[in-house]
Each structure stands twice: as structure tokens, then as C-alpha cells.
């Protein structure tokens, strides 16, 4: 079986996936989407029947996954999954509708409405952008004065998305969170991610470090349910240990696993490519 691994910035993960594909008996090509030209709805000659889609740019990823699916290519993850995961509001809705515990979340469409939401959430609260990753622009807001300053700043920005607000309750947790790497209905790996000194965010992109652990039954069920809630595929489910149990706060569509790979004794990309082969045969 031939598989295209599409990318727009070649990371360690994409190279590792290509090596794993070949070890799994798949014929894999790395395809830079920046060079693709789509004459709708024809398939560019560079693409195989099966694509593992790994773009780093969310907007580019969404357009390319839609265009690829329009040509009849089987894309992992699907465009529908990418749409849910690349929008934190859509992710929150999917998790809540599936009954997956997740932090209380508020959307307001104007700065004037923010006070109503912050009154309900209390302080500290967490202000996040609708799209984005690696913890970028994710801010703990500890009091109303700081929130007002952040709003004033965002209202000056030209992008209308900055004038709408996505806020969540701040969850008291240990200085770590959980990253579960999912492929279909299997948990490939589970690690704790520890925040670096002077940082509350645990993202490996921000210097966080990973340590493998064996998830208990409650956590296993929750992360698999979260993955299913967004549509399934190869995903990174992020969870926290709150005083009331586990909570899922994010699901990543193009999961990075270099940090997790350094913490486990087995081959994560091989397990992902085995899933790709199984999924494509169905």
C-alpha cells in the first residue's frame, strides 16, 4: 500500500513516520503541500490513495484536507476532525456533548459581555485564542484589572477573531498534565508532561518534559471517549488531574510525539503507521 505523508514543515515526527511506514511494509512518500496545485476536483499526481496529513499550519491544513478529500483521497485525519480540533470552541462543544469532563467554558462575542462570563467563572480564569497551539497566547488571568488590560489590547488588533473571547475555568492541578496519543480505538502512549521552571504551561514546545506512565481505567475510557467525540483518528488528547477527577482540555489533530517518544520504550510512529494501514484497508 502506498501512503503519502503530507507536510508543510518537515519535523522529526514526519521523518520518523516515513521510516516507520517502510518498516511496516508501506510505501511512503513525504509530500510538501506547499508545492501542490489542485485543479478541483482532480488529484495531484504527487498524492497516493491514502494520506496521513501532517501540516503545521492550521489554516493550510484545513484547506488541503478539504481539497484532498474532494479528490477522493482517504485522509487521516479527516477534514471534519481537523475542523473540530483546530477550533477550541468546537472541541469544547464536542467534548461536552459526548459527556467528557472538560473545564467550564464560555464564549462571548463582544468585550462588553466578558464581565458577565468572568463573574460566572471567577478568578483566576484562563483566556485562550480560538485557534493555535503550543500554549501560545494561553493566559492565566488572575484579576479583573488584568482581564480589562488584555481586552483593551485585543480590541486594538485588526483581526476580528481577537474581538471575541473564549474563556475557561482555571483548574487547580499538579504541575503536570497528561498527553495521550491515540490511534483509532487504541492508546498508543500516555505521558505526564511537566512544566519547565517558571512556566505553568506544560507544552513540550515550551520546554515541558515527558514521563511515561500507565493510565488507569478511568483515564483510558475518558481519552478514548474524547478522541471518538471529535471524530477519531491519530490524535493527541490532553487531560488534567483536577480535584474532581480527570478532565480533557484539548484534542490535537496533528499530534507531535517527539517528547513522548523520548519517554517510552517502544516505537510510537510504528504503532501509528500500523493503524494507518489497518484503517486504509477498511
Amino acid at each position: 500500500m502506498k501512503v503519502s505523508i503530507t507536510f508543510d514543515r518537515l519535523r522529526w515526527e514526519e521523518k520518523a513516520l516515513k521510516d516507520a511506514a517502510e518498516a511496516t511494509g508501506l510505501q511512503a512518500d513525504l509530500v510538501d503541500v506547499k508545492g501542490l496545485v489542485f485543479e478541483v476536483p482532480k488529484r495531484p499526481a504527487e498524492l497516493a490513495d491514502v494520506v496521513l496529513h501532517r501540516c503545521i499550519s492550521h489554516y493550510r491544513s484545513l484547506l488541503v484536507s478539504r481539497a484532498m478529500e474532494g479528490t477522493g483521497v482517504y485522509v487521516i485525519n479527516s477534514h471534519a476532525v481537523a475542523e473540530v480540533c483546530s477550533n477550541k470552541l468546537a472541541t469544547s462543544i464536542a467534548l461536552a456533548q459526548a459527556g467528557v469532563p472538560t473545564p467550564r467554558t464560555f464564549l462571548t462575542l463582544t468585550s462588553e459581555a466578558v464581565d458577565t462570563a468572568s463573574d460566572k467563572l471567577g478568578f483566576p480564569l484562563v483566556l485562550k485564542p480560538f485557534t493555535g497551539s503550543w500554549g501560545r497566547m494561553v493566559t492565566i488571568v488572575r484579576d479583573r484589572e488584568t482581564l480589562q488590560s488584555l481586552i483593551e489590547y485585543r480590541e486594538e488588533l485588526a483581526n476580528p477573531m481577537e474581538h471575541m473571547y473564549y474563556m475557561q475555568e482555571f483548574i487547580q492541578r499538579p504541575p503536570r498534565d497528561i498527553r495521550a496519543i491515540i490511534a483509532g480505538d487504541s492508546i498508543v502512549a500516555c505521558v505526564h508532561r511537566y512544566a519547565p521552571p517558571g512556566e505553568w504551561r506544560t507544552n513540550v514546545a515550551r520546554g515541558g518534559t515527558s514521563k511515561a506512565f500507565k493510565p488507569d481505567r478511568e483515564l483510558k475510557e475518558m481519552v478514548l471517549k474524547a478522541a471518538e467525540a471529535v471524530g477519531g483518528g491519530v490524535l493527541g488528547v490532553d487531560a488534567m488531574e483536577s480535584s474532581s477527577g480527570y478532565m480533557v482540555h484539548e484534542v490535537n489533530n496533528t499530534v507531535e510525539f517527539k517528547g513522548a517518544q523520548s519517554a517510552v520504550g517502544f516505537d510510537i510512529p510504528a504503532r501509528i503507521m500500523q493503524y494507518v494501514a489497518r484503517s486504509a484497508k477498511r
Partner: protein
Amino acid sequence: MNTSCTECGAGVVVPEDAIVGEIVSCKDCSAEYEVSEISNASVMLKPAEQVGEDWGE
């Protein structure tokens, strides 16, 4: 395989096993380049895209 940094002129070392699309950086000024072409023992680089607001997982 070596080439020069267009920002600072320092030598940029491209690993022998590099492939097209791979990112390399100048050790002196940290400018990033994307490998755009490899032929025989020569390599072509182009400036890598800057990190975008929508980049991530």
C-alpha cells in the same frame, strides 16, 4: 554538504542524510532555511517560513 547563510555569511552545514523539505539553521545567527533541492553533492536552500500564528499541533 555546506552552503552559506544569506543573513550573516557563516557556513551552514547540511547533514549528508538531509532530504528536501528539511529545516536547517545557521549556527551563528540562527536563521532558518528549508532544503529545496539536492542534486549530486550540492544542496539548495531557501529561507524557511516564519512561525505562523496558526502553527501547532
